[in-house]
């Protein structure tokens, strides 16, 4: 008896692999180099620190292993990758330019390290050794394109004829026909990963929404994202006024012993002036979207007067989901998805209102937020973005361990429904709860239907169904999340999903207020 089939997102997550190890070690080494003020040419030593053996461990030669680490280092500095064949020293003038406190990040965020890509074949059905060449050979009978034949006593699939319908695999009594796909392409919900002329993975940046799922799904670690840790550390070291805003998914990401208060102390010790919970911005977004929903419910009652084409409230906090909806269903998205900015932006606004000159660093599980910072309005508010994984590397470089610190001040910026944001379904629930509180007494118990989807492939399916109006009753709140299980499944997260989910719920219960409207008015 086999175990339950896992989807691509569940396969490698929560397992510590050498790919994860290299990724984290590179980040830590780069961070350490900047923290210790080492000269830029020391960047050349890092590949030798990471790949310190003389015999190959992961690939065919140590030289290739180091070449790939060099590319990772370039990404960690926020630099562009070097094209294949253009390999020079990593230490060029561009290294010196990256050691600055201003933003140097350029598109694209998610990059294929071609030297590391093993050119996995594109998706296809293949006959495995399990084939016994049976007399019945139903595979040949069901193929609509006549692509399956028996050759040398075994089943054979002519790939030029195959349309990948999977009928042959379905009928094989020995399960001898397997579906093989590229993990990166399987993880990409928007089908942005193709092959270039040589078979290396290639990202179509017109479609890519920087969700980062391919990064954590590639078993060869050939896809990486640019990082801003070098600029963040430089800003802190220069004594700039740097503020941190930390996403609600942070609970339990740094281990069961690192309580929110300890993380708060650790961030302060690192040199951040103040730390705000992004759940505060989440509360503001909920309040805005709930007000939109109240308006929408009113309109629905008087359909003859309203000229508004709005049918539902689409959540706006997940950047990848919003970009994906805008691209594939522009009209639907324009009419229905909320105009309000993501919680990250709202929280940054609170900080910038107090200190316009301050530098705001968003810390979260999300890579798409790096992409969001290219939007002009966002750019002026959020300066840098760092993932939890990168934050751990920076902590390691500063030699700060949250577990060893004392709890000074606990974070208390937000309501419990704002803190519930990072779990799939949390945003929709938050909006509904807040809306019920805003509605007049007589309407409090009216039906507010909602749907939600996590992972981009599911989101696109949901949007397609919405467009063709297949839902009954029609949903009023539509939540989309690009990552499996919501933000806690983000590519920059460290904790296992189950543990994160439980911890987020517990932290939400600890909040002093349940609804954003209760305390935002007080402030």
């Amino acid at each position: 008896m086999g175990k339950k089939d896992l989807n691509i997102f569940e396969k490698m997550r929560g397992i510590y692999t050498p790919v994860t190890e290299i990724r984290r070690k590179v980040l830590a080494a780069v961070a350490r180099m900047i923290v210790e003020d080492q000269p830029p040419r020391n960047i050349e030593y890092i590949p030798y620190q990471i790949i310190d053996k003389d015999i190959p461990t992961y690939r065919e030669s140590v030289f290739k292993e180091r070449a790939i680490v060099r590319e990772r280092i370039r990404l960690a500095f926020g630099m562009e990758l070097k094209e294949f064949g253009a390999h020079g020293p990593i230490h060029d003038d561009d290294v010196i330019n990256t050691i600055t406190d201003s933003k140097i990040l350029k598109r694209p965020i998610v990059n294929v390290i071609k030297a590391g890509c093993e050119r996995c074949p594109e998706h296809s059905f293949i006959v495995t050794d399990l084939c016994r060449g049976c007399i019945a050979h139903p595979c040949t009978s069901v193929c609509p394109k006549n692509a399956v034949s028996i050759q040398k006593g075994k089943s054979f699939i002519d790939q030029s004829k195959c349309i990948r319908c999977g009928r042959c695999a379905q009928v094989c009594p020995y399960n001898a026909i397997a579906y093989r796909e590229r993990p990166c392409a399987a993880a990409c919900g928007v089908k942005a990963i193709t092959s270039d002329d040589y078979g290396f993975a290639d990202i179509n940046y017109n479609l890519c929404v920087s969700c980062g799922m391919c990064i954590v799904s590639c078993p060869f670690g050939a896809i990486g994202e640019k990082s801003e840790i070098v600029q963040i550390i430089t800003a802190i070291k220069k004594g700039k006024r740097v503020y941190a805003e930390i996403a609600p998914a942070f609970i339990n990401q740094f281990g069961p012993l690192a309580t929110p208060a300890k993380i708060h102390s650790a961030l302060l010790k690192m040199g951040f002036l103040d730390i705000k919970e992004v759940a505060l911005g989440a509360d503001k977004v909920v309040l805005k979207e709930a007000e939109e929903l109240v308006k929408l419910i009113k309109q629905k009652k008087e359909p003859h007067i309203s000229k508004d084409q709005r049918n539902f409230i689409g959540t706006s906090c997940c950047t990848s989901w919003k970009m994906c909806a805008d691209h594939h269903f522009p009209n639907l998205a324009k009419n229905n998805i909320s105009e309000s900015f993501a919680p990250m932006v709202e929280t940054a606004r609170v900080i910038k209102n107090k200190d316009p000159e301050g530098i705001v660093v968003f810390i979260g599980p999300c890579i798409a937020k790096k992409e969001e910072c290219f939007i002009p309005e966002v750019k002026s508010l959020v300066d840098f973005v760092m993932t939890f994984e990168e934050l751990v590397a920076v902590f390691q470089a500063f030699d700060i361990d949250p577990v060893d610190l004392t709890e000074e001040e606990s974070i208390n910026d937000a309501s419990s429904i704002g803190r519930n944001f990072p779990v799939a379904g949390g945003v929709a629930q938050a909006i509904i709860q807040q809306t019920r509180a805003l509605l007049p007494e007589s309407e409090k118990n009216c039906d507010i239907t909602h749907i939600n989807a996590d992972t981009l492939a599911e989101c696109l399916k949901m949007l397609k169904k919405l467009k063709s109006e297949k839902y009954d009753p029609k949903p009023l709140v539509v939540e989309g999340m690009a990552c499996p299980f919501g933000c806690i499944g983000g590519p920059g997260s460290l904790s296992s999903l189950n543990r994160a989910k439980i911890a987020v719920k517990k932290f939400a219960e600890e909040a002093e207020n349940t609804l954003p409207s209760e305390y935002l008015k007080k402030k």
Partner: protein
Amino acid sequence: MIKIEICCGLNCLAHGGQELLDILENNEKYKKNCEIKCVNCLNECGDTAENSPVIKINDKIYKKITADCMMNLIENFISK
């Protein structure tokens, strides 16, 4: 009862400690036979986390331990 202490310091956490904890907590057999405890940094991980993850089984330190290695060890202890 086998006493297992998992280092939950930052280095070990980033380099596989959390995953070891997941394995232990999701296995009924281990939960029944072992006393699992998360502890502060055991100070065995080294400057650049080269020895992470570190765990302590019955007061003996095991460095740079992998998941399969840990499971083997525990199985051995249980069968003793």
